[in-house]
């Protein structure tokens, strides 16, 4: 069957994988696997090949193999990415290093415990807040309004940004990029009825709005090109400007007295 980039026909790759098993002696070590790459072969294809034919003890997550489900986030040569979306041919060398996503506890090999990531996601109450549950008709939303938030609904919650974030590395209580993107997605949705100022007030700390170092690691690692840093900056701006409005309102109130 014909396929895309034909430039690596039958080239030998060495894949080095960080190994760990929570249940067995808790030691880290590396395993090297040698693999003959076929055209179009992705890192996920290579991992499956290794698991099926070379080492059935190797563990990693996968599902869609089409870069839409977010299961297979790992570090590829130190860069967080989806294993299914990176082709061996596009990597600079035939030596490839694979490690589990940082900032999350390792369970086995490339499988991490995603619970801290989901915990941050749950903390921002990631659902549309409305008074009526369902009204059997649609809300009207203009294309322009939709454009305000549709990019942020593309997030697949793969945690690549969470893993790349240097702030989480030093403070595991920081919400991280994905959760803040999710919050912003609802803030910009014209159907949303939560008290945004109240939500921002709760995040007025270094684990929420003010944690970000603005070093763009999340932006660089996002497979969906979502630019979380922009979102975090926008949330900060919204908080500051609404705070200023309140401040002036209060001053005006005092003056009236």
């Amino acid at each position, binding site marked *: 069957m014909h396929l895309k980039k034909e430039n690596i026909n039958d080239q030998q790759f060495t894949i080095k994988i960080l190994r760990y098993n929570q249940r067995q002696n808790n030691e880290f070590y590396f395993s090297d696997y040698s693999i003959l790459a076929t055209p179009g072969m992705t890192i996920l294809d290579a991992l499956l090949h290794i698991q099926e034919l070379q080492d059935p003890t190797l563990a990693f997550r996968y599902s869609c193999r089409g870069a839409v489900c977010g299961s297979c986030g790992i570090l590829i040569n130190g860069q967080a990415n989806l294993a299914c979306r990176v082709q061996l041919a596009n990597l600079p060398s035939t030596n490839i290093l694979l490690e589990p996503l940082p900032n999350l506890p390792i369970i*086995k090999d490339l499988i991490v415990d995603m619970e801290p990531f989901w915990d941050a996601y749950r903390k921002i109450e990631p659902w549309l807040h409305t008074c009526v549950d369902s009204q059997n008709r*649609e809300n009207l939303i203009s*294309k322009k309004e939709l454009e305000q938030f549709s990019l942020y609904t593309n997030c697949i919650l793969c945690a690549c940004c969470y893993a790349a974030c240097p702030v989480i590395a030093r403070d595991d209580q920081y919400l991280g990029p994905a959760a803040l993107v999710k919050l912003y997605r609802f803030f910009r949705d014209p159907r949303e009825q939560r008290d945004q100022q109240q939500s921002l007030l709760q995040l007025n700390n270094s684990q929420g709005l003010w944690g970000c170092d603005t070093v763009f690691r999340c932006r660089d690692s996002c497979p969906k090109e979502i630019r979380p840093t922009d979102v975090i900056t926008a949330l900060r701006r919204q908080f500051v400007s609404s705070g200023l409005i309140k401040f002036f309102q209060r001053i005006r109130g005092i003056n009236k007295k």
Partner: protein
Amino acid sequence: MLIYDIIIVGGGLAGLMTALGTITDYKIAVFSKVHPLRSHSLAAQGGINAALGNVATGQEDNWEKHAFDTIKSSDYLADQDAVELMCQMGPEVVYQLENWGAPFSRTLEGKIAQRPFGGAGFPRTCYAADRTGHVLLHTLFERCIKHQVQFFSEWLVTQLVIKDNLVQGIIALDYLSNELKVFGARAVVFATGGYGRVYQNSTNALINTGSGISVAYRAGLPIKDLEFVQFHPTTLAGTNILITEGARGEGGFLINNQGERFMERYAPQRMELAPRDIVARSIATEIAAGRGFDNSSVHLDLRHLGPEKIIERLPGIRQICIEFAGIDPINQPIPIQPGQHYSMGGIATNLWGETHVSGFYSAGECACVSVHGANRLGGNSLLETLVFGKIIAHRLPLFLTERKELPDINYLDRALTTEQTRLQKILDRPGDLIYTQVRDQLRNILTNHVGIFRTGDLLKAALSSIKQLRIDYQRIALRNKDKFYNFELLNLLELEGMLDLGEIITCGALAREESRGSHARLDFTQRDDLHWLCHTIANYTPDGPQLHYQEVKITRYAPQERKY
């Protein structure tokens, strides 16, 4: 032992819809072999059908016309009462998801946008660019977080426990604690998805092994119409990643190596937007006649749509083409080929999602209501998941008020012991084969012998090969005996079910001596309503599936010739 009112197996759209409809009144749990947000529902791209009449050319649309298109596309095998119910409920569930936050694309007036789709008389398919499944699944999961639905993620359900035709619970393998555990339930809902990975060339996620269908089959549930396998016309050549029907809905052309829009030969009126079975067969015919590229693909050409439309309506498709094929559809045609995509058949249910076993329900791709008959209309699978997930949630209270008795704990414990023994035997089994050898052969047989075009000889050969694979299966030994995140063990457990499903598909296809919808027999090229206007029902026996037939429910749409 944990006991629930309702256990839902499967965290895709159908499962979550049922969960959301029952969470406020019952103690429920959702089991899933992956985190729910990794379910295959999210890979749906093009949209969900509902006769909203939101665009100018669709104002004459209504649910009856939607029902007619669905029934005609099904080649008259769908049960018409079920189709009518689904199409009537279309607008309601689409509005519900919109109200819950799904970011549907919009018309200029701000209404939910609708695009043309194959086999549909009007632009009826509501969409969110080309990521409709993704946004619907995230919307439902978000509501599940709100309502604090309890999830058991990364658990493989291996047994459905039934006593005296009454459901008792499930047995599941926890990837993490490395143990089989038993859970009691007054009702169980299977929403476990399709079996695409029984085939080699599937669009499906790698996790789609059909394990829920085979677990139900082994538990004695009848399986309906499994020989009807949908091949999607446009999958990316080589990887078979789905390229949405929306690409043709937006105006894409199918072109052969002669530069012809060849659909003119096969469906002169509907052209590229004929139903999937017809377009898939047309492409396969062109390739077989030497009019393909590299003898394996034809081109899906979007270039004339222009960059703006492609970027607005088909951004995900563009990203897939760039990432997986190294081409940009703005400048180059996409090499595509048909690939296995969807299972019309599944666990037999009535139009309320009820099965032959009291307290056991099924919805979504793993179920066969049947609303798709012999060929599913594009845009109806998402609709089916939401509608029947919701219907089951409405029906469950009726059953649960009647069922007073709790699950039989002693019976469940005994079932667990039996299952533990079975698992231990598999772990201890000596052998000289590894699971991929049997799995890959099965996939090859299904793809090459039970594919788009079938003949009696090919099917007979397939059946005897599958029987041999069953024997070979017993020779597979595990190299990895650890039960902690042991994917070899999980794959081996699921492989047995895949063999079951492959056998049911093949038996049904061999017996059905006609061509109807997706089931195209080169030795019986006509539809035969006199003998075959009926559902295939397969029941488990140790010697293979036992088939019998059941009549199709016709309400007001008399079978007629299917032309496009």
